[in-house]
């Protein structure tokens, strides 16, 4: 349990983000603890969780069923089987019940899938009109994780192992059984479908990651509505506790081909949610991603992007939400999704500021940025708790080690694009 009260035993930090570091050392988050901030982040968690409920189901559907379909025109047409798929962390039969709600698809999601922004019509028309959940956003998150890779953990190196190749080969051949053309292509270019398979493994990874995050966010929203979540540190601590509670959740990739299950990445490998999904996801999507297409040249001589991938800084923590186009993954898609599921108190709040309804997308995008800083704070605190010392440790050397860790984390926000300074101000909308 992260303590929120600790006596400072160290002199003040001299880091440019000293105030934030002191707040972290006191058990807080990077985001200042104000009622307005709390309202924004919880509202956005709820608005994010509803489309996320679709994302994780569809990601698993694509990873497990679509797999290597060369013409996946209907990959976003989630079958009822996956809409009814029980979330392992919600519902009565949950492995670990995080959310007290139902295990199947959220009712707001189902309602939106029926009507979209327009009216009830066949799903194909909704799809063609792009009046649907923007699943492309989820795929871009997955692709960011795939492109960056090498972010630590065992999962990623396993994708290059012989065991994985053998499992993948078996699944590929089973999938294309009776298709001489595809099998011939696989024979000629074995790396082609292997790489596609790795991509599918990341689909599964991300799907399993978000399967947990969705009920976490739903529960946080319910607690806030019930008046049981009253501060930003409390929200952060809920995330930290959740991270530790589900850290060991297995990450795997199973493919179902003609009724048979092929374990490309079996559960027995022991890949854990925290190290193989959560941390790479935060690193790839919150910090790194990639510049939005067309905004930067990848030409090495142009020197517009960092030479090292680890120095990429185009994630949500650095994004200029407005005008869109500077964030690596365009938040517009997610922002549009979240707009559909904003809680009424947030809608009312946004209507009173800036341009009201006209720029609600931007306002919620900025709130979303605040909420992701809170999530990042939880990850940082969780890492500190796992690898270093408690915040109320009596040993100053241990506290110094904690501080060094926090300062190292804050160093990543020293570049001008980082939004850490902006989120300290309430006027940043």
């Amino acid at each position, binding site marked *: 349990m992260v303590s929120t009260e600790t006596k400072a035993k160290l002199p003040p930090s001299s880091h440019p983000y000293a105030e934030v570091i002191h707040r972290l050392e006191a058990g807080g988050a990077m985001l200042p603890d104000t009622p307005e901030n709390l309202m924004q982040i919880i509202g956005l968690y709820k608005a994010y969780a509803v489309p996320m409920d679709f994302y994780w189901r569809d990601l698993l559907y694509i990873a497990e069923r679509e797999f290597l379909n060369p013409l996946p025109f209907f990959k976003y047409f989630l079958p009822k089987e996956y809409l009814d798929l029980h979330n392992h962390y919600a519902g009565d039969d949950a492995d670990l019940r995080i959310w007290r709600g139902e295990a199947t698809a959220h009712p707001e999601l189902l309602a939106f899938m029926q009507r979209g922004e327009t009216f009830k019509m066949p799903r194909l028309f909704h799809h063609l009109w792009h009046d649907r959940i923007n699943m492309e956003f989820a795929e871009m998150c997955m692709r960011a994780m795939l492109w960056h890779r090498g972010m630590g953990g065992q999962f990623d190196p396993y994708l290059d192992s012989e065991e994985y190749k053998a499992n993948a080969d078996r699944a590929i051949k089973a999938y294309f059984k009776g298709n001489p053309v595809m099998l011939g292509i696989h024979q000629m270019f074995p790396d082609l479908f292997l790489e596609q398979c790795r991509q599918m493994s990341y689909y599964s990874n991300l799907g399993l990651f978000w399967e947990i995050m969705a009920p976490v966010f739903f529960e946080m929203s319910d607690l806030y509505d019930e008046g049981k979540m009253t501060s930003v540190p409390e929200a952060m601590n809920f995330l930290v506790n959740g991270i530790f509670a589900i850290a060991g959740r297995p990450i795997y990739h199973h493919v179902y081909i003609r009724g048979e299950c092929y374990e490309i990445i079996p559960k027995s490998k022991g890949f854990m949610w925290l190290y193989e999904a959560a941390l790479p996801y935060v690193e790839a999507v919150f910090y790194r991603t990639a510049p939005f297409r067309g905004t930067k040249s990848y030409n090495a001589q142009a020197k517009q992007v960092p030479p090292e991938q680890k120095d990429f800084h185009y994630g949500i923590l650095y994004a*200029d*939400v*407005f*005008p869109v186009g500077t964030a690596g993954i365009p938040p517009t898609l997610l922002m549009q999704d979240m707009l559909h599921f904003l809680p009424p108190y947030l809608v009312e709040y946004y209507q009173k500021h*800036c*341009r009201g309804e*006209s*720029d609600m*997308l*931007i306002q919620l995008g900025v709130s979303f940025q605040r909420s992701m800083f809170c999530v990042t704070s939880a990850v940082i605190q969780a890492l500190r708790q796992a690898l270093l010392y408690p915040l109320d440790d009596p040993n100053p050397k241990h506290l110094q080690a904690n501080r060094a860790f926090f300062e190292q984390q804050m160093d990543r926000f020293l570049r001008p694009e980082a939004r850490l300074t*902006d989120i300290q101000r309430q*006027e940043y*909308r």
Partner: protein
Amino acid sequence: MLSVLIAVPIISALFIGLLSGKSTAAQIRQMTLVIVSFLGLWTIWLFSQFNPAVTGMQFTEFMPWIRIVGLDYSLGVDGLSLPLLGLNALLTWIAVYSVAYSGERPRLYYSLILLTNAGMTGAFIAQNLLLFFLFYELLLIPLYLLIAIWGSSEKQGYASMKFLIYTAISGILIFAAFLSIALLSSSGSFAYNPQAAQGLSQTTQLILLTVLLVGFGIKMPLIPLHTWLPDAYVAASPPIAILLGGVLAKLGTYGLIRFGLGLFPDTWAIVAPGLAIIGAITAVYGALAAIAQKDIKRMVAYSSIGHMGYILLGAAAATPLSLLGVVLQMVSHGIILALLFHLIGVIEAKVGTRDLDSLNGLMNPIRGLPLMSSLLVLGGMASAGIPGLVGFVAEFLILQGSFSAFPIPTLVCIICSGLTAVYFVTLINRTCFGKLDNATAYYPRVQWSERTPALILSALTLLLGIQPNWLTHWSEPTTNVMVTAVPDKSGPPGPPLPGGEASLAFHKLMDADSTNGLQPTKSPAR
């Protein structure tokens, strides 16, 4: 009929000025709006009663006043002054409506605007030189106070004083010329009479015309008498800048034509080449100075100087087409300048700056000023003379009408038309396009009271650009008569116009019975 346009604003100004201090600014604004709306409707009614075919003065009114000094209350309107009356009514309404005045002294503010309106109306319709001068001077103090008290610049005191001194000198020079005309002419009166100066020697006419040129040249303004304008326009608040640039400057051009060309047609032909050169220089200077500006309001102010150069060129050429173009340019420039100043005023009010280096991305539909930016693009295009908008028709008429008389100055002005596009593209590119900085983009919404004037002016810019005949047919006969009095200038005569008229009726240009050689070529019979 015409007296209503003078009496109502003057009496209203006195009435508003004497209202109790309990009246709020909003109430006084409402009252003023009702008055200027009435004046606008009255002007529209005058338009409906006006007979364009009659070339002389209409709706004349005469009353002996202070006979001992030669001052008579003599009013009349013709095709030259009628469009300017309309412009004055429209822009006064825009000036009152566009800004909800919220400062101190609203009674004084709106009284001064009404007095300014009365002064400009009176000057446009006065048929007595002394009466004209009276109304001309009536404008001085109200505008000085409007700039000095309600200006939006640190230099408003300096700018207002400069404006006062320059226009006072202008008034003195004009008065001196009028006095000389009255004393030296055979009629011996201040009544406006195109024949009044005919009996004077050419040297005398030349001197008097020069004095008038300098006097009205200050008002227009022309190079090198222009230095008051950028400071005054920039220092003035947007509604006052609209009145200054949209109407007051037209008083200078109106005076030049009415009293310069109208009273001294023979001498006009002598000074015309010099005027054409000054016009070209003014156009070049205005354009180049505008390109160098970083303050967008100052850029538009210099642009205004440049456009006055076109007017002087057209007046110097004094062909039927060019003079018609001059009238059209006066109105179109007034509309376009009003639009630009209004939009710049809104941008400054919302964004907080007019600096070209700071403004960016205003076209952004979510947090920018998309409508204002779009109309700014329209206004810039109109000022640059893009076809389809009223600015093009006016410039085209002037340039085509002047080319036969003064080809080289006309060519220079054509080049300046391109330079206009340079600075307006710069303005639009920097302010409207690019990335809007979210750190500063928390601009208040544009209200409908701010949008409406821009939409009205933009609609006029479009409509009159597509159908300029709606404007020119009031003035054609009058300008034709004025031109016939001017002796033939040097240079080859231009092509005779169909029906002997500077007509924009294209069916006449393509009339097979026309003797002007503009018949469509016929294919040989197969």
